[in-house]
């Protein structure tokens, strides 16, 4: 019994590491870049879109995993799409009602989550082949990985391009967050390019480069530590 749980725990850890780092949807799979680049001129926008995407991912992964044995494979793609579209529309309506201003700022990018390939990819590649518990873990960590990139990108761009951090946090957290904004000193001249579209590409490129650099360093240390047998790359 305990070894079964150990096995499960091991699997979860595996899924989590893939979602957060090894198969990060934004940095490795490069999926969902259009909203990623468009809304990250501000930390709060990035966080908002990240959470919305995660909610859709979670719903679609759970539902797809639940019905995976009952849907013939010929119609699975249309069914997945129906589920995702439905989830996106529900979340769009909920955000419209409860985060009105943020919904206005994120605008078209909330409904566009439906075209985020990452979600259909997870439904097809993972949830349709795995039980519900694993699908939930997968959705959570894929979502967190994507959201983290959005937050880091948003924070970086906002800090450099606007000289602030967590500006307009009240859009997401309500009135308690009115004073959360951190301002750089007035003598700082914002580099406005960072919040313009080119800044998104440059910042994302730097993040990807940083990730590859870390991977390279890790690889080097593990390579020198243990003689690894060469595995076929799958």
């Amino acid at each position, binding site marked *: 019994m305990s070894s079964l749980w150990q096995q499960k725990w091991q699997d979860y850890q595996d899924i989590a590491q893939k979602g957060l780092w090894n198969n990060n949807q934004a940095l490795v799979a490069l999926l969902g870049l259009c909203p990623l680049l468009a809304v990250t001129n501000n930390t709060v926008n990035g966080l908002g879109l990240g959470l919305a995407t995660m909610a859709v991912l979670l719903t679609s992964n759970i539902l797809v995993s639940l019905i995976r044995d009952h849907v013939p494979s010929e119609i699975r793609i249309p069914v997945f799409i129906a589920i995702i579209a439905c989830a996106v529309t529900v979340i769009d309506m909920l955000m419209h009602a409860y985060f009105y201003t943020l919904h206005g700022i994120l605008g078209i990018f909330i409904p566009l989550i439906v075209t985020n390939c990452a979600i259909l990819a997870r439904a097809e590649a993972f949830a349709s082949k795995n039980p519900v518990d694993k699908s939930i873990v997968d959705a959570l960590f894929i979502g967190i990985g994507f959201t983290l990139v959005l937050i880091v990108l948003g924070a970086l761009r906002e800090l450099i391009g606007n000289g602030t951090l967590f500006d307009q946090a009240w859009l997401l957290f309500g009135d308690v967050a009115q004073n959360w904004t951190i301002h750089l000193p007035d003598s700082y*001249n914002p580099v406005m*390019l*960072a919040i313009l579209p080119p800044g998104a590409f440059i910042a994302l490129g730097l993040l990807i480069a940083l990730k590859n650099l870390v991977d390279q360093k890790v690889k080097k240390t593990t390579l020198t530590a243990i003689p690894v047998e060469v595995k076929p790359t799958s």
Partner: protein
Amino acid sequence: MHNIYTSSPFAHNNSSVQKVMLQVQLAALPALVVHLLLFGYGIVIQWFLAVATALLVEYVMLKLRGRPLLPNMTDFSALITVTGLVFCIPPESPWWVVVLGSAFALIFGKHLYGGLGYNPFNPAMLGYAFLLLSFPAQMTQWTLPTELTGLHRPFWDTFQVIFFGLSTEPEIYTGATPLSLMRSGLHEGVSAVNVMMSPILGSGWFGLNAWAWVNIAFFIGGLYLLLTRTIRWQYPVGFLGALIITAWFFHTLNPDVYAPVSFHLLAGGTMLAAFFIITDPVSSSTTPYGRLIYAAGIGLLVYVIRNWGTFPDGIAFAILLMNIAVPLIDRYTQPRVVGHSR
């Protein structure tokens, strides 16, 4: 034994590259002198700032990339890049403007693409576009020519303005460039001819404003480069030709709304671009016919952006846009090998 891979043209001491780069620097001298006389000492300080930044950035980036310092640091290409940039920025803008611009040009415009020869975009113009988009307020306020304000700022004062932002009367010292004035004038319904006669545009030595004189100086330096065959004729001919034809066409169509050809030739960075910027062999087309198309495309785009774009001068954006088009141009303009059909 390590193998050293090199590519053609197998020149061992970079002497030809150095010679070309030095000749370009020499040709920029007249413009530097005119600039100094008309706008004060600003440009000298900015140039030294830019060169210091360039040396530092080159050193750090070459170290980080694990490339040898020597042939790479002495090829003078970074010098040309920052010199081009320095002429584009307002001579009395704060010190960090030119430092950030030079650093961005060299890091993002050159090293991140793999160093000299691999950069698809002109680094100087990339640096300028970065500055223009990032600090539009600083970049669009130009020091007014000294003979217009009647104020000859001593070297030490200029130094203080650049480094500490200390300026007694900024309203008198700075103003819009002719291109900006033309844009806002036309926007508010003043005819092009009347804008041309406004004090900043219409007065100066022999009735030509300071910006026009800098352009003329660049033209003279450019002729030297042409005569010594340092640059190919296709660049200035294609660029200026396209600009002249479009400007003439629209001016004939409606002289009230479209500035005359002479205005476009002698304003902004026209001559600097024609002889010093677009002639960069790395980021431009490599076929003779292609060079002509490339240069003409820039001329056309400059006119379009100057008239209908968001920013007053479109040189940088026009060049960057045509840089992206270079692979396509090259592909369709390959000279036919004798005996082969296309």
